C-alpha cells in the first residue's frame, strides 16, 4: 500500500467559537477571502471632488466681494441644478446613483465660474442641463464624457444667449447686495483686443488684475484666489502641475514674443480672461485630459498655442474655452501616441517608409 492511498481529505473546521468576538460577528464565521491587494489608498473619487470644491472656494469668496451676493444665487442655481439633473438622469436611465461622488457639484461650480454674475437664473439652469444631461450623462456619466461638461455648456450658452453672456459689469466695490446700477464694461481681454466698442475704456492696473477687480466671468477674475486653490490641488497631488505649467508657459512665451518682448502685455494675457481658471481647474479635469506625463505636456502646449492664436487672430477676444474644447477632442489621439512602452519591451522599430526614403 502506498502512502498516498492513506491520505484523507479534511474538511475545513470552522474557527473555534471563542469569546473574543466582540464585534458581533457570529462565532465560527469564516474570514473574508479575496485576491490581493488587501489594502488600498485612502483617496476616493468623492474625496478628490471635494478637494476640488474646497480649492474653488477662495475664488467664490473673492467673487462675492467684487460682484455682490448675486454671485451666490448664480452659483447655488448652477450647483443645485447640476446635482438635481445628475440625480434625475441616473433614475431615468435606471443606472446606479452617482450623485454621491460630488462630481456634479464640481461641474456646477465650474459652470457658474464661467458665467457673468448678471446672467438670468433660468439660463444658468439651462447651462446645467446641457452640462450634465447632454454632455455627461448621455455619454455614460462620470469618466465617459469626451469634453468638459462645464466648458461645453458655457459655449452653448455663449452662442444661445450672446447678449447676456457678454454683458460684463465692473465690480461694484464693497457691495453686499445685487447692484442694479452696475456699470457695464468691456473685459480687459476685449480692451487689449482693441475693438471699436471698447474705445475710451482703460485697462485695470496689474494689481487690480491680480486681485480680481475687473470685469469678467464671476469666478475667473481673482488670480490670487485661483492660484491659491490651484496650489492646494498641486500640493495635495490632486492634479499634476504639468498641464497648468505647460499651458501658461506656452501662452506666456507666445505673447512675450508676439508682443515684442513686452512683459506687461504678457502678464495681462496671463491674468486676463479665463486662463487661470481654465489652466488650473478645467484643463486638468481627469476624464478629458491625457493619462501620461508626456501626454499632459503635449496637451498643455496645444492648449497654449490654440488660446494664443484665438486671442491674437480670432474674432473672439477670449480663447480658453474653445482651446480646451478642441484639445479635449484630441485627447484620445494624444493618449494613443504617448502610450507608455511596457518595461523591457523593445522600442518599436522606426517606420519602414523612412528607412526606404533614406536609402
Amino acid at each position, binding site marked *: 500500500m502506498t502512502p498516498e492511498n492513506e491520505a*484523507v*481529505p479534511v474538511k475545513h473546521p470552522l*474557527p473555534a467559537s471563542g469569546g473574543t468576538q466582540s464585534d458581533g460577528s457570529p462565532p465560527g464565521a469564516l474570514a473574508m477571502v479575496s485576491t490581493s491587494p488587501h489594502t488600498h489608498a485612502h483617496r*476616493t*473619487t468623492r474625496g478628490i471632488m471635494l478637494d476640488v470644491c474646497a480649492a474653488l472656494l477662495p475664488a467664490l469668496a473673492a467673487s462675492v466681494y467684487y460682484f455682490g451676493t448675486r454671485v451666490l444665487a448664480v452659483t447655488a442655481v448652477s450647483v443645485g441644478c447640476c446635482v438635481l439633473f445628475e440625480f434625475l438622469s441616473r433614475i431615468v436611465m435606471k443606472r446606479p446613483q452617482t450623485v454621491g461622488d460630488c462630481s456634479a457639484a464640481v461641474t456646477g461650480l465650474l459652470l457658474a465660474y464661467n458665467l457673468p454674475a448678471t446672467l438670468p437664473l433660468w439660463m444658468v439652469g439651462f447651462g446645467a442641463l446641457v452640462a450634465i444631461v447632454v454632455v455627461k450623462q448621455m455619454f455614460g456619466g462620470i469618466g465617459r464624457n469626451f469634453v468638459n461638461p462645464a466648458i461645453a455648456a458655457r459655449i452653448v450658452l455663449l452662442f444661445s444667449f450672446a447678449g447676456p453672456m457678454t454683458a460684463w459689469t465692473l465690480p461694484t466695490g464693497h457691495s453686499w447686495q445685487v447692484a442694479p446700477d452696475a456699470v457695464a464694461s468691456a473685459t480687459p481681454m476685449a480692451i487689449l483686443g482693441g475693438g471699436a466698442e471698447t474705445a475710451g475704456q482703460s485697462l485695470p492696473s496689474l494689481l487690480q488684475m491680480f486681485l480680481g477687480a475687473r470685469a469678467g466671468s464671476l469666478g475667473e477674475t481673482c488670480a490670487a484666489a485661483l492660484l491659491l486653490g490651484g496650489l492646494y490641488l498641486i500640493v495635495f497631488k490632486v492634479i499634476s502641475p504639468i498641464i497648468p505649467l505647460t499651458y501658461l508657459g506656452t501662452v506666456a512665451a507666445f505673447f512675450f514674443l508676439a508682443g515684442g518682448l513686452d512683459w506687461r502685455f504678457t502678464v495681462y494675457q496671463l491674468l486676463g480672461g479665463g486662463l487661470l481658471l481654465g489652466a488650473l481647474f478645467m484643463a486638468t479635469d481627469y476624464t478629458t485630459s491625457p493619462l501620461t506625463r508626456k501626454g499632459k505636456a503635449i496637451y498643455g502646449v496645444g492648449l497654449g498655442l490654440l488660446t494664443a492664436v484665438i486671442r491674437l487672430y480670432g474674432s473672439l477676444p477670449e480663447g480658453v474655452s474653445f482651446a480646451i474644447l478642441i484639445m479635449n477632442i484630441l485627447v484620445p489621439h494624444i493618449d494613443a501616441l504617448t502610450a507608455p512602452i511596457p518595461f523591457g519591451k523593445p522600442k518599436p522599430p522606426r517606420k519602414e517608409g523612412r528607412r526606404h526614403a533614406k536609402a
Partner: protein
Amino acid sequence: MGIFFQKGIHVRHNKRTSALQPVRIEHCSEVTLLMKQHIGAPCRPLVVPGDLVKVGQVIGDTDEGLAVPLHASISGRVARLEILRVVTGEDVKAVVITSDGKMTLAEDLAPPVLETQEDFFRAVRASGLVGLGGAGFPTHAKLRSAAGDADTLLVNAAECEPYITADHREALDAADDVMEGIALIARFLGIHTAVIGIENNKGDAIAKLRSLCAQASSHALKISTGILPSRYPQGAEKVFIHSLTGRVVPVGALPSAVGVLVMNLASVAFLGRYAKTGRPLISRTVTVDGSAVAKPMNVRVPIGIKLNELTEFSGQLKSAPAKIILSGPMMGTASPDLNAPISKCNNAVLLFDRAEAAVQPESACIRCGACVRGCPMKLQPLKLEAAYRAGNAAALRALCAMNCMECGCCSYVCPAKRELVQRIRLGKGILRTADTKAKADAAAPAAQKEAST
C-alpha cells in the same frame, strides 16, 4: 527612463515590528507539512502514519521537475496524511506530525562537503531551500540556470511590502550569515560583484550591513550596499535589478539574461548557516501583525505550524480576524480560517479587523491615470481592464498583459476602487486559454495529415 518614470507607488508602511527580535517557538504541538510548498511538482510523502521522525529528516521528495525535499520541522510521530484545500484552491497532500516535545535532531545532519559546483547545487537542493522572499522558486534551479551567465549577485533586502520586517530582522540578527552566504554563492558561481539592495527606511540594518560589507570585501569579491527609495514594489525582481544596476530585463526573460542573479536576503543567510551546520530549511521568520493583533511580533516558527497555533502563541487578538492574510497585504493570499499551515514562502501572517478588511464599492473609472503612472511595468491597467471586460484577447496581448507581475499598485491607488489587477489576472487567463487553443488548432491539421498518410 528619466524623470517620466518613477517606479511604483508610495504605500503606508505599517512596519511596527522592525525593532522586535524574532521570538522562537520552542514547543509546537503539531505541524502540517504541505507536499506542495512552491511552484514545481509536488513531493511524494516518504513516511507513513505511525512513523517516528526527527528534526531535519526528509519526509517528502520527488525526482520530478523543480522539486526540493521537504524535512520534518519537529520530532515526533506521523499522525496522518491529509488532503488539504490550500489558499490557492488546490487540494494538496500533507504530512501531519505530532510533536514528542523533544525536538530531537536527526543523526545524519552534517555540514555538506562542498568541493565542486555540482556539490554546491546538490547541497542547495538537499537543504530544501526555496526563495524565502515569497515567490518560492527552488534555489538550486535558480543557481543552476544563472551559472555562467550571472556576473553580479543582487541580494534582495528591499522588503517593500507593508507590515513585514522578517528580512529586516534577518539583516540585523544574521548579518554574518548573509556575508558567508554571499561568499559561498560567489565562490561557486564565479561572481565577483555582490550588491545588497535595501530600502532607505531600514537605517539600522543599512549601517550594520555597510560595516560588514567593508570587512568581507576582497579583491576577488566586492560586496556593497545599494540604498533604494522606499517605494512599492522596489523588491520586485525586475524593478530591483533596474534600480540597482540600470539593466532592463527584457519581456519574458530571466534576470540571467542581463547577467544578474537575484536572491532574497533570508535565503542567502540560510545558505551561509547551512554550509556551517547542515541543518535543512525547517524554520523561518514570520511577522505577525495587522489591526486585529494586540501585540505585533516577529516569530521564528517551524515550517508547517498552523495559524491557530501561531496566533495562540502571539497572544490574545483584539477582535476576531475579519481577514487572514498569508504574506504581505499587497500580494499575499487570504485564508478563510486559521486552519492553514505556514509554508516555506510565507513571510508574514496578517490578521485584519473589520475596518481594515472593509472593501469599498467600485465606481466608474475617472481616467485619473494614477494606475498608469503607478505601474512599475509601465502598463496601462485601465486599458487592460477594459480589454478583459470586452474579452478582447488581441487587445490584452497588445497591451502586454503577460508582463503584469500582479504587484497590485494599480488597485491600491485607484480612487474609484476598481479591481484592476484582479481583472488583469483574469485577462492573463484569457490569453493562456487562447494560446492553448491556438496550439491545439495548429497541431490538429498536422495530426490529420499524419493519420491520412
